[in-house]
């Protein structure tokens, strides 16, 4: 690894230094192709973010792919119902590694205004490892852009070697997650305990 002081000194002199890992992550983070996948109201703001005014292509993510096989990023934009949740997990499983998930909007992160409903999943993070959560109902396109920048920072910080390397480089890390069944009363299982655990209330005695 190169010393940071030496590196900034070199860049002042017009010498650009980098590492293979940084170059690799720089390329990855600037070409995140999202899955063309809208669920509800938030999908309209997602489309608005890809239009001329907000222009998500400034961040290299304008290539919305219709097939999960070609996508790097799943933007869960909208309410996930219990009928739709198995298909969402299946789509995630079909995406190639490395893959990321943005949960966009109150419904996708917690069920939102429809949380009390009998048919609404209370957050897609019960089944999928979500990288960035965006609150809002619906979030503004700027919020989606901010989430994308946050994800880019996360990708830029991922290591390629060593024990803390990125999940897609670890052989034992799961690439697919179990698909819940649309059972008689509820989704079965109701959550994936490897991904999500209910919050524990710690009370002072």
């Amino acid at each position, binding site marked *: 690894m190169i010393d940071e002081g030496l590196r900034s000194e070199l860049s002042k002199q017009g010498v650009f230094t980098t590492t293979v890992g940084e170059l690799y992550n720089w390329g990855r983070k600037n070409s995140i192709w999202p899955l063309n996948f809208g669920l509800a109201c938030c999908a309209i703001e997602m489309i608005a973010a890809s239009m001329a*005014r907000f222009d998500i292509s400034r961040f290299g993510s304008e290539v919305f792919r219709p097939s999960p096989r070609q996508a790097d990023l799943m933007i869960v934009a909208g309410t996930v*119902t219990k*009928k739709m949740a198995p298909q969402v997990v299946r789509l995630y499983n079909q995406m190639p590694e490395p893959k990321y998930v943005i949960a966009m909007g109150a419904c996708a992160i917690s069920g939102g205004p429809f949380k009390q409903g009998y048919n609404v999943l209370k957050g897609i993070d019960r089944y999928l490892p979500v990288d960035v959560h965006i609150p809002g109902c619906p979030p503004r396109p700027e919020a989606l852009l901010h989430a994308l920048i946050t994800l880019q920072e996360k990708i830029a910080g991922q290591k390629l070697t060593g024990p803390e390397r990125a999940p897609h480089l670890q052989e034992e890390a799961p690439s697919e997650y179990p698909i819940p069944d649309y059972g008689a009363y509820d989704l079965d299982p109701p959550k994936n305990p490897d991904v999500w655990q209910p919050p524990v209330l710690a009370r002072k005695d």
Partner: protein
Amino acid sequence: MRPDSAEPDLSALSTGDLVVESPAAVPAPPPPATSGFELTPKPATAPDADRGLLEVAIGPHHPSTHGVFRLNAVLDGERIVRFKPVFGYLHRNHEKIGENGTYLSAMPYTDRLDYFCSLSNNWAYALAVEKLAGLAVPERADYIRIITAELTRIQNHAALIGFLLQELGAMGTPLMYAFREREKILDLFEALTGARMMCNYLRFGGCRCDLPAGWLEECRRVVEGLPRFFDEFENLLSTNEILMARTQGIGVLPPELAVSAGVTGPMLRASGVNYDLRKVDRYGLYDRFEFRVPLGEHGDVYDRYMVRILEMRESAKILQQALREVPGGPIVDPKVKLRNFRPKAGEAYGRLESPKGELGFYLISDGSTNPYRYRIRPPSFINLTILEDMCQGLTLQDALVILGAVDIVMGEVDR
């Protein structure tokens, strides 16, 4: 009604996996469970089981389905024999939530029904409650309602035409033009209500807040620019050769069928039926404004496109007239008490011409703070029921264009 083609030669096909198995190979279905009612057994040989039909399921994740929605198509060669929509992937319990909360607490949920047109939905619900409770609306509030509803209609139709052209293969460009205008209108909504899409602006007997300073001037500026946008949009699209070839004569809906199926809105008017609730019901103050109701002649997809373009022009005319003479005065009836709001027992059906058709809310009150029954008549759901009849005998790519012209929003279809 099926094409009278000869029996296809199955031996020539190499796609053995895709051919539907003949019913002889399928074991007999188990006897129905004794559940109190009897099921009619299916005929042992389905009439077209051995014709080599291909079943294709489109969706629930598909770029052409306008949301989470599945289409089960049965194809004979390339032609559609059966075409069944499957909904329920976005069922969000709107009606149950509406019955469990107070009257006012259902108002933000109406935003999320048809999430393109939140202000029209607000107005339809407010109309139903005002009818139920017998409330009057001040003149200024009615003007604001008309202005916001017509702006909503313009942005909905513009976005719909953009999506329709996307189905035709014009990836992005018409949609970019539509969203450019839509953003101007959303800026007005944001200045007025605080939210771009989920406005939650109307209240029973009026509106939530008055127009901010300078809003009317800004709105006039936007409305003055609209005819230029329509001309530009039409120059690009209306005489486009591909658009005309792909939409003229496709998906013809005869007026008798449209009326008997309960189709409303631009789809019904494209079939030549003169039925616009703004003229029929004259709710709000629509009888003060001069506008025409555009009608189609052929009832095909091109007519539906053209009716929407012309409706946007008429909406711009209504806006120009309304913006000229917005009166002063209160924006909400001061007698209305929103806290502990209890209309007397009874029922009411409030409806209006939303951009997609007749949007109605049916409420039964038992005198308590919650509605006893809260029922929505969603226009895009009822317009969708006619899909199979329009697609008979056409190819799959035509069917997706027809679906695009129906103008569905899944939040409203599944509720």
